[in-house]
């Protein structure tokens, strides 16, 4: 059986979620591996969400928001840039491959770009194989 990555997508309401919607209404075909959660702004994405997703078995996490300068709340996605840059360091310290986590900008008009971004992370994660984070937690548990 081929490995189908489970990827969590956290999308901002104003740009990326609408962009993903456009990909659907435009009938663009792309990988079905991303499960989408909508948030009002990518600035709302707490790094805890991403760690929790990995801890609970996600093979990859994709955060998508408005392009810098286009935030509906003016400054929200600048905070996202800063947080996710630092989070990438933290994930690397845990030994998590950088390809498993991506921050992307997708506007409401970029349905084709959304499809491309999803295909890209799906292929990258597929090459890496299943995430070992949940397995590690099981192996490391005192009951084991």
């Amino acid at each position, binding site marked *: 059986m081929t490995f189908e990555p489970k990827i969590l997508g956290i999308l901002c309401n104003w740009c990326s979620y609408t962009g993903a919607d456009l990909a659907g209404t435009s009938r663009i075909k792309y990988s079905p591996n991303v499960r989408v959660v909508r948030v009002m702004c990518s600035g709302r994405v707490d790094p805890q969400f991403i760690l929790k997703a990995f801890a609970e078995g996600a093979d990859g996490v994709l955060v998508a928001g408005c392009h810098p300068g286009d935030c509906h709340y003016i400054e929200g996605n600048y*905070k996202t*840039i*800063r*947080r996710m*840059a*630092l989070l990438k360091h933290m994930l690397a*310290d*845990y030994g998590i491959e950088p390809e498993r986590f991506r921050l992307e900008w997708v506007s409401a008009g970029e349905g084709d770009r959304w499809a491309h971004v999803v295909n890209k992370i799906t292929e990258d994660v597929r090459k890496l194989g299943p995430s070992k*984070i949940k397995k590690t937690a099981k192996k490391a548990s*005192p009951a084991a």
Partner: protein
Amino acid sequence: MAKFKLASYWASACGGCDVAILDVHEKILDIAAAADIVFWPIALDFKYQDVEAMPDGHIDVTLFHGAVRNSENEHLAHLLRAKSKALVAFGSCAHIGGIPGLANLFTKEEIFKRVYQETPSTVNPENITPQPKVTVAEGDLTIPELYNTVHTLNQVVDVDYYVPGCPPTPKQIWNVVQVIVSGKLPPKGSVIGASEKTQCDECTLKKNGEKKITAFKRIATAQPDPAICFLEQGFLCMGPATRGGCDTRCQLSGVPCRGCYGAPAGVLDQGAKALSAIASIIDAKEEAEVQRIVDQIPDSLRSFNRFGIPASLITRKVL
């Protein structure tokens, strides 16, 4: 009133928590007046057999310091759980893993290699490493087995209360003793001897307004102004994501908070929360400029989650 029975045990810890108990100074006599100390390896001569001989639930309160990192720690955690009415995870190590928890970023093999082969002061041509069991002419000798992963106390046994801190401050220890003596115990699972809010909520250092960081500084290479908020000066301070209750003793001594009191109420992952708060005050909008600034933190996981990796959402380096 009958005296209550008190035990204090150290597992994988430095012994600082025991010293902190003694740091209540002459009040230790008040503790001795209110409590019969039935087990305290660092200070009094008790053997494990003495504890094994006790009936279950014999001890009223056990202050358990230290993480669970080897088979002896685990055995004593189970033993003291059975013998105690209330088991308290006392200090950062028992509470959230503490400094020993940093070992979760390595494997046991990597640690053995470093300690028994690579350190400059080590000469070990035969590559001898500790084995749990060795057979000599007189019979088998055993030592506890070191585990690959450091655990918090509540990952191994059921814990009634938590007292955070590395170590808990003497003032808080005294408060905890008074709570126990009064018999008005809080609900199970409570963090006692600390506040619900963050360090920043209690910190009295001068804050000038909006924080904007364009460069991260390190206390080893730059001198902070001890009267002003460390974050405003660009020094990493874990105050925004650390539980208060220590009277911000580090900050008042000119040292930024390192996060030993763990996450405040409602936070799942102290490191992620600290990272989130501190990243948001970086004063840059261009991705390249942000990258340049965050790259100045050489060791982000250990800077943001120095004490709590075993208690975090991801508890160790991926195997």
